[in-house]
């Protein structure tokens, strides 16, 4: 077990290293950040040159990388070119918002999706199945910016139930600001969480449905029926565990994705999250922030996926884990 953990950690370390090279070289290849730092419409050539030198961007790339890594070792990702705040704490400051949004969305999506999928798959071709199938196609085909707009149109503009954007009132907990603790914050959370959750519900429902159809045709499910188990127990105690590996996989990946890449929703609902920060930083070539965010995202994914792998082993005794 120890070796497994050590193995995983060293792999994660390597991964971060590769990631840093890709991020570094990638940003470098895309363009010169200076054009975003100075006001290109009013800056003089000298301003640009000065800024380039000040940021060390005139140095050879490998040397820049070397310096950067040297700082990272001491826990310093550098200062954002744009915000002039420490890059890492900038990322961390976006974390609560992102985390509560992603968690809320997943807490809605995973149970709803699984339940719908199970019920639909159990009676393939039945009314519920057809509804789930059609609705999921709808939910998956509609681009997320449309969906978000529709939600704003409906939930905010037409009905006035929810505010259209922002985080609302926040409460400080563990030194961070959280919205989910206030009613106002929750109502602000509702629409963006729904916008994120709806496609996920559809996705999970589809997966669960396909799995259910497959599992329900197997002998042990028939035997469960022959045993006299109630339909509900068969569904939840036998079918559910047997379809859960792909669902857990997807939930893990999607959760990671929402932590890092929920750009559209974060933008449209003005939800100050990591995804928006990352995209902005990439577009502005704010390298310290990009690197800090990438590091966070990679750690999140490695962690989530390790968790998912553990869940496999807990779910299915036949699965053997390698490092």
């Amino acid at each position, binding site marked *: 077990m120890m070796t497994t953990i050590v193995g995983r950690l060293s792999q994660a370390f390597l991964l971060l290293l590769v990631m840093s090279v890709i991020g570094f070289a990638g940003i470098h290849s895309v363009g010169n950040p200076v054009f975003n730092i100075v006001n290109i419409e009013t800056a003089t050539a000298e301003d640009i040159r000065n800024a380039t030198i000040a940021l060390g961007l005139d140095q050879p790339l490998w040397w820049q990388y070397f310096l950067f890594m040297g700082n990272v070792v001491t826990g310093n990702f550098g200062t954002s070119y744009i915000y002039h705040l420490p890059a890492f704490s900038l990322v961390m400051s976006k974390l609560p918002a992102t985390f509560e949004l992603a968690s809320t969305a997943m807490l809605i999506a995973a149970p709803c999706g699984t339940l719908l999928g199970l019920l639909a798959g159990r009676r393939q071709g039945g009314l519920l199945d057809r509804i789930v199938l059609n609705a999921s196609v709808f939910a998956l085909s509609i681009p997320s910016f449309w969906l978000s707009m529709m939600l704003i149109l409906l939930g905010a503009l037409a009905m006035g139930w929810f505010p259209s954007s922002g985080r609302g009132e926040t409460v400080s907990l563990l030194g961070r600001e959280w919205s989910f603790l206030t009613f106002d914050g929750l109502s602000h959370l509702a629409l963006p969480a729904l916008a994120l959750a709806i496609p996920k519900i559809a996705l999970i429902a589809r*997966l669960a449905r396909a799995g259910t159809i497959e599992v329900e045709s197997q002998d042990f499910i028939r035997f469960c029926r022959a045993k006299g188990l109630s339909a509900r127990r068969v569904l939840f105690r036998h079918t559910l565990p047997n379809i859960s590996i792909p669902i857990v996989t997807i939930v893990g990946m999607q959760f*990671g994705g929402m932590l890092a890449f929920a750009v559209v929703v974060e933008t449209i609902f003005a939800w100050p999250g990591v995804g928006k920060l990352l995209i902005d930083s990439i577009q502005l070539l704010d390298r310290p922030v990009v690197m800090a965010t990438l590091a966070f995202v990679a750690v999140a994914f490695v962690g989530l996926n390790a968790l998912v792998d553990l869940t496999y082993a807990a779910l299915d005794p036949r699965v053997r884990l390698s490092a």
Partner: protein
Amino acid sequence: MKAETLRTLWRYPWQHRFSLSLVLLAAYILLALAAPFIAPQNPYDPLQIQAWEASSPPGTVSGVGYAYLLGTDGLGRDIVSTILYGLRLSLLVAVTSTAIAAFIGLTLGVSAAYFGKWADALIMRIVDLQLSLPTILVALIAIVTLGPGVDRIILAIVIVQWATYARLARGVALSEIGKPYLDAARLLRLPTHRILFRHLLPNSIAPAITLIPIELGHAVALEATLSFLGLGVPIDKPSLGSTVANGFQYLLTGQYWISLFPGLALFGLIASINFVGEDLRRRLDPRRRSHGA
């Protein structure tokens, strides 16, 4: 593919309920192929566009004869023609990238599960890496270093999408590995590729197959997003996805047609692919007939 499968596939639409979605999809493909012949206008040719007829509502008759059945966009492109031409690009990009991504992802995923140990570790860490790389960054790097082009977009989408398939297939394959039918296959000393592709893969991809039509939709959307950022297809040759993405801004204005019709067309396309995919899944599942209650 095996004869049996082919036969069932072929027989299906006629034997069972007439598959509307298949017909719809076929129609889409036909329309896309025939676009240059049936579209009233070539929206990629600036000379054919009547700029002063920009933002005409549906039904307006053009100065050069034909009617703009679905209106024109803010630059005077006939929406019908834009849809038809955009369809070609979207289909090309989405189908190719999804197919390649699914193939690579599934293969690597089941391989990781099958070989285990360091192969698993390596592949899965690449997956982790891939999952944590933002699409935009990948696309930016690909397009800046390789230059713009449809193939580059496809590449970018493949890079973004394969990992999902890989992880999904690996998870299922892991629990499939210990089953006796694979032992039997191993005993026969089947070539590895056969074990992977004929035994492990078919039994691990059911969830992934569900994913394919979904990811196809994502590919269209992704391509649109990239185009929106100037990383996709050229702006004057919009794909269906980018037409919708651009027109999205008009959704709330009076000029609903600029976004609505391409949106509906795109929606129909993705929906029909989804339904066909669902039918396919059912066709390919040997146990598809559920046991009665």
